[in-house]
């Protein structure tokens, strides 16, 4: 279990992490979500005793990371940036790590096998692809078979097969009763992996709740209504107190977005007035959209033209 209390980190006038308090419980995958620059990596470095908090504290299994006599047996961490020497082989990298925490050498082959790197274990890691580097990082995290696993952006650079593997691994580790904290800036990734979410933006806590609660609270839905007589339908719906949003109604593919009543109710209303409908669809906005909305004010490096976002969709 990981507990952060009032965790704060400032660099000069800039506050990277602002009074974060949260608990990461065992037995489930906790997603640590936020846009780039939200303070996720800084928070994780503080959890691991690499960075000193300006104020507040973080404990792992009841004590600070640095106080652990054999930290790799207690917490396994995949750090965001590659933390290895390019001239050393994967096996040698695991060898010194194992030696530092009194982990038997037999475990090295186990983790190499687990992440699928046994064939390239004796190659210099400088030649590894980004994905292979990530796999080695995960091997490092699992070396001490730790009850707490912290993975910073684990799917970066992985191919779809690798992404699914990490997703399943995280769920499996949590299923074994471990505490699993996975950071990502991709909501879609978290939606498939995490049971619980901690969302941060500009170093501040935006949400700390279960995934289902997050969906219920933030993923808005509306009913898409299209009709050859849009204006009349709109007037009718507004008369019944519904919230109507016009989208390109002057064009052929224009639509009304209606909130406040379900599709069946809207259909009956419109039908009762003798108007025709060409489409009546419940649209559930994606979690990605919900995340965007939630973090809109806290994005560090926002693109200013909304067209850019549209063009890339």
């Amino acid at each position, binding site marked *: *279990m990981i507990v952060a209390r009032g965790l704060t980190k400032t660099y000069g006038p800039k506050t990277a992490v602002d009074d974060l308090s949260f608990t990461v*419980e*065992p*037995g489930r995958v906790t997603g640590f979500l936020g846009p780039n620059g939200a303070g996720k990596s800084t928070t994780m*470095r503080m959890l*691991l*005793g*690499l*960075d*000193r908090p300006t104020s507040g504290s973080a404990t792992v299994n009841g004590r600070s*990371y*640095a106080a*652990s*006599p*054999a*930290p*790799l*047996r207690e*917490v396994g*961490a995949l*750090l965001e*940036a*590659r*933390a*290895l*020497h*390019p*001239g*050393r*082989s994967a096996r*040698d*990298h695991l*060898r*010194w*790590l194992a*030696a*530092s*925490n*009194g*982990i*038997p050498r037999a*475990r090295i082959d*186990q983790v190499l096998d687990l992440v699928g790197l046994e064939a390239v274990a004796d190659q210099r890691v400088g030649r590894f692809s980004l994905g292979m580097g990530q796999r080695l990082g995960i091997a*490092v995290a699992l070396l*001490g*078979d*730790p*009850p707490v696993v912290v993975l910073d952006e684990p799917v970066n650079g992985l191919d779809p097969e690798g992404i699914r593997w990490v997703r399943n691994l995280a769920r499996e580790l949590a*299923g*074994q*009763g*471990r*505490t699993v904290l996975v950071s990502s800036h991709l909501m879609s990734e978290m939606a498939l992996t995490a049971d*619980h979410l901690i969302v941060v933006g500009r170093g501040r*806590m935006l*949400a*700390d*709740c*279960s995934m289902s*609660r997050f969906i219920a609270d933030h993923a808005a839905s509306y009913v898409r209504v299209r009709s050859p007589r849009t204006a009349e339908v709109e007037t009718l719906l507004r008369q019944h107190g519904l919230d109507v949003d016009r989208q390109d109604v002057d064009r052929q593919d224009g639509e009304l977005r209606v909130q406040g009543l379900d599709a069946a109710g809207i259909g009956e209303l419109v039908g009762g007035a003798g108007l025709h409908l060409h489409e009546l669809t419940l649209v559930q906005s994606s979690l990605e959209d919900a995340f965007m909305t939630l973090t809109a004010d806290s994005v560090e490096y926002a693109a200013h033209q909304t067209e850019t976002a549209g063009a890339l969709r």
Partner: protein
Amino acid sequence: MSAGPTTSAAPLPSAAGPDVVRLDPDRHVPGRRAPGFGAALNAEWIKFWTVRSSRWSLGLLFALGAGLTTLICWGAARDLAAGATTEVPETFITFGLLFSQLTAVALGALVVTSEYGTGMVRATLTAVPRRGRVLAAKAVVLAGVLFVAGVVTAFAGYLGGNWFLDREGFGVALSDDGVLRALVGNGLYLAGLGLFAMALGLLVRHTAAALTVGIALVLVVGNLAYALPGAWGEWVAKVMPGNAGGTVAQVLPFNGGAVLGPWTGFGVFAAETAALLIVATLVFRRRDA
């Protein structure tokens, strides 16, 4: 953020729910005990020998140190035989040190700056969060390796160089005054120099910067200091790290400038190195990795 998840009261994995199995921490990794300084030392030892730069630097140290001593003695032997020099043979017997000391500086700096350059330092500190212990382990490995390499190099240089000197009748015996001290002193000086450079590396965290500062301080500034005027100028020159530390590794000083006695000089150098290491350790312990 209102109602959090329905958490069970007990935080232990075994009580988290019926779907959660109890985790046996010793399943794959038996033998749970607190690894001490020995484990950190072992880790640093493995790290040292598993990168090419260490082996290259040591190879170069030996080649420059022993090779140049032999070469210089070969040339000196002829000059001595021809009466073309007023130098004494003892001056030349550890001469390669002038160059091998550069590799010791490089090796000492690289031991830490390569970790900063690659991000390795974060892996190191997650494995061994006690920073003083990390530095102590690094220092023991570095100093131990350089001491052995320095002594071996000096003996090889002595054997090679003395063969030429001996041929011309100017041989230097191991039992001669200061010879054995200089050979062993070679190891001591290079070990100290490695630690000095390691401390510099910790402070500047950048390979090129650490090398530049280290080499400039030990060689360039050290020699320039002899140009300073007056008694205080001579004093400054004497206590420059390279000048003070090098005395223990030479039977007689190469450059003819004023130097401290071998053990006094080495004592001064050791104190300078220790002071720099203490500052570097304090900084390293406070700094974010």
